[in-house]
Structure formats: C-alpha cells, structure tokens
C-alpha cells in the first residue's frame, strides 16, 4: 500500500510487526449462485418435478409405446385403469400417450416462443442501451407502442387471419406451431427489451466498462464480452417466466379452438374436447389441466429461485 509509515512519536524498541489480514474465501460466482438457488426449497423441488416432466415427455413413447390415435370404440370415456393409466377420451384414444405427445408440443412451444421473445428483446434492448439519443428514443417508442397493444385480442386476430395460409403451406402441426410461436414471441419481447436496456444503461457507466473502453475495445466487443455477461442475470429470470407464459397462452388458444386442432393433442387442445364431457368424464379434463398447472408452477418457482440466485438483493 502506498503511504509512508508514520515516524514514531514514541520511540519503540520492538520492531513493528507485520500482521496478515485473514484471507478471504474465494468462491466462484457460479458456485455462489447455485448455493443461493439451493436455499430456495420450492425451487429445488420444482427443478426435480420439471425434470421428471421433461424426462417423461422425451422418453415417454419409449416406455409407453401406445399410439396416440388408436381409436377404440369399446373403450370410450373410461377412467384411469391399468390398460389406460390416464383413461381414454371419446374415441377410445389413450390419454397417457396423448398427454406425452402433448407435453412435447407444449414445452416446445414454450421454449421456442421464449427464444423468439428473448432474441428480439435482447437485440432491441442491447442496441437501445448501447446507442443513445435518437436510436434509443425511437426503439423505446416502438416498445411502448407494442406494450400498449391488447395482446389477447391481437393474438386471436393474427391467428384468425393467418391460420389457413400457414396450415396450407406447412401442414397442420408445422403451420400452427410456427404461427403460435411467432405471434406469442412477437408480442412478448417488450418487457425483456426494457429489462436489457435498463441493465445496459446502468452497466455502461460502471468502471470496468470504462476500463475496457480505455483499453480500446470496440463497441460491439464491449457489448458482447463485458456487459452482456453481467446483464444476463435478470434476463434469464425473465426468460424463464416467459416459457411459463407461453405455455399458458398456447394452451389457452388451443382450448378456445384457435390453436392446435383437436387431432393434434397439445394439452390445451385435449381440454377443448374434454370440456364438453366434464360431467361424465372429468378425468379427461383434469389430467391435462393439472399437467399445465404443474409445469407452469414449477417453471415459475424455478424462475423465483433463479432470481434469488442471480440477483441477490435480499438482506437476510
């Protein structure tokens, strides 16, 4: 440390002692984040549950190789049994198989929509945050405009208008999948853009960025290598919540008959048919509904856990 040792006012015989400060524990950031995540018990349980769901959805067909469209009129509207652990629907199709398939669709939609929203949001937010003045103002005006749009009506409108063309072009599943993912993602990027921009604005002024700039880093490099890694925490949390949102939105659309058609068994479209048989075969509606609830709940808790882990502003 710079600075002179003070000349002693009182002469001292014993030589001055050098005392070492207690060494600080160096724990990696990732380990710290994981430790904080672990503290959130519900998040941990949810991680496990979600893992089970994802595992079931991916490897399900291997473990339960029943077709989703085997019609069997002798076994319609049956409750859970050994032959059909989740029961059957009004065409005798096995619900467990359909739920496994539906899980794939729902989760895929969730992740894809999150990717679209995330990609758009991060891009707009980063550009807005790094640039300033007119570019920033213009992008923010656009963001605010999109935020003021009535989402569900617009969602329905877009699907109404574009559904047939896309279905003709890319087939039943593909067409609807693309439409839903683009439309959901395209209407949910705004909160992420705002978040990323806020992060960039605050990090831009921090010392380590100044240092990098002084060393001659280009703006792009600054953005990608220095700011983005630090900004990513809250963005990950928001993106996680987006997956949950997208899953709910897709199932809502399919439930209304405006998403995947009933022969493509997403969890929402299963419910579309099931609601008419609510009194006679409630299991048909309860299983997919509960599956959606459990998946979304787990994702939300995990998001909360991630928030604790990556953005520790708690005081206790």
């Amino acid at each position, binding site marked *: 440390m710079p600075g002179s040792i003070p000349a002693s006012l009182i002469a001292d015989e014993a030589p001055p002692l050098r005392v070492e400060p207690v060494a600080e524990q160096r724990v990696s950031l990732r380990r710290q984040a994981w430790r904080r995540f672990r503290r959130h018990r*519900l998040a941990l349980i949810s991680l496990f549950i979600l893992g089970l769901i994802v595992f079931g959805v991916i490897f399900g067909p291997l473990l339960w190789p029943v077709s989703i469209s085997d019609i069997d009129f002798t076994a319609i509207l049956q409750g859970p049994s050994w032959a059909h652990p989740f029961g059957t629907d009004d065409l005798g199709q096995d619900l467990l198989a359909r739920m496994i398939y539906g899980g794939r669709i729902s989760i895929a939609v969730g992740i894809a929509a999150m990717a679209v929203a995330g990609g758009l949001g991060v891009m707009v937010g980063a550009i807005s945050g790094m640039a300033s003045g007119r570019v920033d103002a213009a992008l923010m005006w656009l963001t605010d*405009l999109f*935020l*003021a*749009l*009535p*989402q*569900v*009506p*617009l*969602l*329905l*409108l*877009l*699907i*109404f*208008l*574009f559904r*047939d*063309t896309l279905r003709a072009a890319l087939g039943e599943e593909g067409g609807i999948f693309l439409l839903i993912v683009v439309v959901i993602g395209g209407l949910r990027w705004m909160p992420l853009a705002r978040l990323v921009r806020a992060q960039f604005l605050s990090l831009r002024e921090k010392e380590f960025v100044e240092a990098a700039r002084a060393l001659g880093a280009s703006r792009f490099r600054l953005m990608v290598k220095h700011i983005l890694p630090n900004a990513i925490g809250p963005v990950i949390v928001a993106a996680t919540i987006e997956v*949950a949102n997208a899953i*709910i939105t897709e*199932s*809502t659309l399919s*439930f*209304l*008959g*405006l998403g995947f058609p009933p022969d493509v068994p997403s969890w929402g479209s299963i*419910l579309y048919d099931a*609601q008419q048989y*609510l*009194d006679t075969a*409630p299991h048909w*509606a*309860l299983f997919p*509904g*509960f599956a*959606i*609830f459990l998946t*979304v*709940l787990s994702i*939300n*808790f995990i998001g*909360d856990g991630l928030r604790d882990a990556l953005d520790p502003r708690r005081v*206790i």
Partner: protein
Amino acid sequence: MSRAYILRRLMMTIPSLLGISAIIYAILALAPGDPFGQLLTNPNVPPAVVAQLRKSFGLDDPVWLRYLHWLFAMLHGNWGFSFSSRINVSTLIFERLPVSLVILGAAEILAILVAVPVGVLAGTRPYSLFDKIANTLAFIGFSLPTFFTGLVLILVFSIRLRWLPFVFRTDLSVTGIAWLWQNILQSVMPVTVLGLFQGAALVRYVRASVLDVVKLDYVTTARSKGIGERKVITRHIVRNALIPVVTLVAVQLPVVFGGAIITEQIFRIPGMGSLLISSILSDDTPVVMAITFVYAVLVILFNLFADLLYAWLDPRIAYR
C-alpha cells in the same frame, strides 16, 4: 396536478392511438384473404350497406387515405355490418360491452381487496410464515390457467354440488331482489376466477413494492418521530407503495382483458370476449376488426386514467 400536465398527457394519447390503429390496420391490410374486400363481397351484407361502406372506408383510394378513412370510421362507431348476426356491428358490440365491463370491474375490485392487505402484511413481515404461505399461494394462483380454474369450479359447484348456475343469462325473468340475487349467484364463479388470478399476481407486486419502500430513508425518519408503527405503515409505507401498483394494475389490464375473454367463453357470459371468439370461429371479419379496435381504445383510455391517477398520487410527477 396542473392543467398543463393533463393537457399534455391527453395529447400523448393521440400518437398512441395512431400507432396502434396503424398496426391493426396494417395487419388487416396485409392479411391473406383480403378482409377488407370481404366486407363488401360477403353475400350477407345488403347492397345499401355495401355502398355506404365503400364510401366510408374509401376502398378505392390510395393506402394512406384508406387508413385515415378507416380510422375515422372506427372512431365514429361506423363498424360495418356483421356477417353472422346481420345487424350493425356497433349495435352488437354496445349490447355486449356493459356485461364485460361489469364482470371485469368486479373482478378487479376483488383482486385489489384481497391483494393489498395480504401484500402489505407479507411485505411488512418478510420471510415470516404468513409471508411464505401468501407467496406460495400467489404462485399457485397465477400458475393456474383461468380456463382450468373455471372448469374445476364448474365441476365442483355447478355439476357436483349444484349450488351455482354455470350458464350466464342476461334475460332473467325475475325482478327486484330476486334479480339481484340471481345475478350475484351467476357472477360469483367468473368474478372469482378472474379476480383471484389477477389478485395472485398483484399480491407479489404489492409485496415487492412494500419491500422496496420499507428500505427507504423516509420510513426511518417516520419511525424516528415516534408516531407508532401502525401510522408508519399506513401513512408512509402503504401510501407510497401503492403508487407503482396503480400503474401496474393499469398496465396489466390488457392481460386481464385476455383472461376475461376466456372466462366469458367458459361461463357463456354474453360479453365482448365471447363475441370475439364466436366471430372468429364464424369468420365474421367486421366484428373481429371492430372488437380489436375497441379493446385497443379501452387500453389507451385505461392507461391515460392510470397516468393521471399516478400524477395525482405522486406530487413529484406533475412538476416534471
């Protein structure tokens, strides 16, 4: 709050309105199947109306003029003719609007009545048992899709227990107290579904807002005055914590509209939301277009109201 501020804020709605309507118009104009053309060529539309529509939408003019004609028409309630119902779209919509607003309003009030006390209590006792339970219940609340909750409630209360009707009727034949009671019975489930979903999200926002405010210096100043913890909470913490929540309720409204659409559909409430769904399913373009526009206007109006309310509650804003 100065008159200048109100005026300024009102002026700001104009670009929003223009922007949003431009987006809606662009979507309609670029969509396959020529929705605008359909307005004229659909066989259900009487010829007199076709001629009038052609004039008011200016369909023979260049694009930007068409857009302005369209906007003008929309703002005047000139919404065309419904293909399926064979009446003016405006009549149809204004018939349905009151029910939607009443259900929405009741649900919002329920949400606020539940969320504010719970959120404040949770925020002032963070990490306590109450807080943890409230938090978990809130998570469960907004992870449950409204259609699922609606279906479960119908299953339990209408089908199994037969306590509540699940079909909503605006044409009740009884009057007086019986009419009021019937209305209440049939509104309980939809309002609960919508209200609790919104309330669950609100609880977390209120709690977060309270936690933010509790840390602030002026709360310590208030405590140091020795006025009693209760006054500190009500006069200082809650009063300030609720300000951002007001904006939030307004900003969340587009989402709540979405939830209301689903609720109306499940409980067969004859509101604007169920009209939107049925017109989509029956390809009734003018109705779809008009409802989307009405929703957009509602959102702008509510945002305006929220901004004014915010400025009234927070004296710092109006002076900027």
